[in-house]
């Protein structure tokens, strides 16, 4: 075990995998001398050269598509998007090309491609640089979707992503990069996709959260504990594949569900979880599942407005109490 930041965990796994497999390479904006705007590729070009740690022009559709082509032709590209909001300028390459190619080619293609980058609030980046866009990639089939909330998860899930023969959307969170945690040193440490992590066991209410909101949910659980409410906190870790059984089993035990994410609440992935839980565990539900997410407005620059737009710990506590009829 080593103590690492989330950013360093990502950095180190990329370095290790590039050492292990010469087909792995990185491309993206400013990944070379600058080491990425968030430092995830810092100094990698020194070891691996600028062919394998490759600055790109500002042409996201072009280099995401180039990642697909390179993957089809035997490489294993890691494409860094500086902000996952920029998936929007490359959406066709992601949703029509990367996601569909294997299937529509009758299974005659493998696309070992990782698209990674950060998203979310936390740096005052406002409307076009703070969004949480993972739901899109859950809706259109063909891409795996990972969302690590800790340094260890970042390491284990990223290694799985790089070794996976399918395209993976890998969502980091800008406000998590500096956070530290233990990361196994095993160079083959992986976390399987489709395995939720029960971050805290509890009996009264199940709280499902990802990325930044895992921490906020745990904070809420601490507060709830003080009031005698025992919350189980679950991080699905991957949305595709999705470990519904862990979530459903939990709700069968607690009878109550709150899903909280930074993605917009409206038509966000929380609705899918809430719906599936309702379908699968209806007789066990003591209350309607509640969902928290970002409000139905673009993320405003002003910090107070941003806080008002996004779920706060107090909102999670309130939702938990609501499903427990304790309010």
């Amino acid at each position, binding site marked *: 075990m080593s103590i690492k930041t989330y950013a360093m965990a990502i950095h180190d796994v990329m370095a290790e995998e590039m050492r292990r497999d010469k087909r792995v390479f990185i491309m993206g904006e400013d990944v070379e001398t600058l080491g990425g705007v968030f430092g995830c590729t810092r100094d990698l070009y020194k070891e691996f050269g600028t062919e394998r740690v490759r600055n790109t022009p500002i042409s996201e559709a072009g280099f995401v*598509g180039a990642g697909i*082509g390179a993957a089809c032709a035997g490489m294993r590209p890691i494409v860094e998007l500086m902000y996952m909001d920029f998936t929007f300028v490359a959406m066709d*390459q992601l949703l029509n*090309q990367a996601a*569909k190619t*294997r299937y529509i080619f*009758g299974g005659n293609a493998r696309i070992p491609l990782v698209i990674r980058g950060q998203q979310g609030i936390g740096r005052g980046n406002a409307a076009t640089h703070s969004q949480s866009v993972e739901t899109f990639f859950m809706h259109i089939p*063909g891409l795996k979707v990972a969302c690590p909330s800790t340094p260890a998860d970042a390491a284990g899930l990223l290694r799985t992503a790089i070794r996976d023969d399918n395209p993976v959307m890998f969502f980091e969170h800008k406000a998590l990069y500096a956070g530290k945690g233990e990361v196994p040193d095993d160079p083959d440490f992986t976390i399987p996709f489709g395995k939720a992590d029960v971050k805290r066991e509890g009996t009264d209410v199940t709280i499902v959260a990802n990325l930044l909101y895992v921490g906020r949910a745990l904070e809420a659980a601490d507060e709830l504990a003080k009031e005698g409410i025992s919350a189980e906190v679950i991080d699905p870790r991957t949305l595709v594949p999705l470990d519904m059984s862990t979530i459903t089993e939990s709700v069968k035990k607690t009878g109550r569900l709150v899903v909280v994410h930074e993605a917009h609440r409206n038509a966000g992935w929380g609705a899918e979880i809430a719906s599936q839980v309702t379908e699968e565990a209806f007789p066990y539900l003591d209350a309607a599942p509640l969902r928290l997410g970002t409000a139905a407005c673009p993320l405003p620059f002003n910090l107070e407005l941003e806080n008002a737009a996004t779920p706060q710990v107090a909102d999670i506590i309130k939702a938990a109490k609501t499903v427990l009829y304790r309010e």
Partner: protein
Amino acid sequence: MIEKERARRIYQNMNRIRCFEMKAVSLFESNKLRGSVHLYVGEEAVAATVCSHLSDEDYIASTHRGHGHCIAKGATLDGAMAELMGKATGYCKGRSGSMHIADLSKGNLGANAIVGGGIPIATGAALASKMQNNGRVSVSFFGDGASNEGTFHESLNLAAVWKLPIIFVCENNLYGISVPAWQSTSVKDISVRGAAYGIPGVTVDGNDVEAIDEAFHTAYERARSGEGPTLIECKTYRWLGHWTGDPQPYRTREEVEEWKQKCPIKRYRSKLLEEGLFTAEELEQIEKSAQEEADRAAEFALSSPDPDPASLLDDVFYEGGDAQ
């Protein structure tokens, strides 16, 4: 002059494409084949000539008008026709149809129903070839209309700055569906856009096998020697409607007739006879066997089974682990 074996392949493939497509039209008209089918009739010289330079290891990425490229790159007419009919025996198990047909085993990265969608992908294959230093070359086919998509620009710039082994082949058939190139494209010769990337751009008569051949040869050598990409524009013409039943209010019958006079197959036929490379009998034999192959392909496809609906969710993801 093109070497005899390659000349034969070119002439064969032009005929195979033509016969395949006319067969597809008749199947469509008799309701045996459905969906969006974009025909290449009249443009055969481009695919046949370009692909005559390529091995199975070289890559192409194609377009919605992809049968010609697919066949010229080595597909059997059986597998291609079965795919057009959505049969389990098709190249893509009936999942892709005409618009997404692909045969990766021959280096065909697929037709692409998104205009401009395949250009970055071909560029990426060229990047892989460069990184693997394996001497492979990529060809990106696209239309005049596609040259106005952002992906065209981004890909040509990428390929130029990275000096990738790729040739961008623009099939300028003067229209994007109903829109004449003059109305949508700010330059008369799309090849001038090479200047925007510091790469050679050349326009050739896309119905003239030898003109295409010469330009492509130069571009291919350039790509293989590490000097980077070339943009080749082939001026040609689509004889048929954009889709079967297209009323074609956007062009005159005369214009179409005029271009039919410039048939690339007839033209190359005369050339081959003139040069004395083949006898008329030899060429007739090639034409006849192309026709027979297309007929057999139709029978094959018609008698092939549909895919099993139980296979619906297969292949969305590759289920194996690390490929290493």
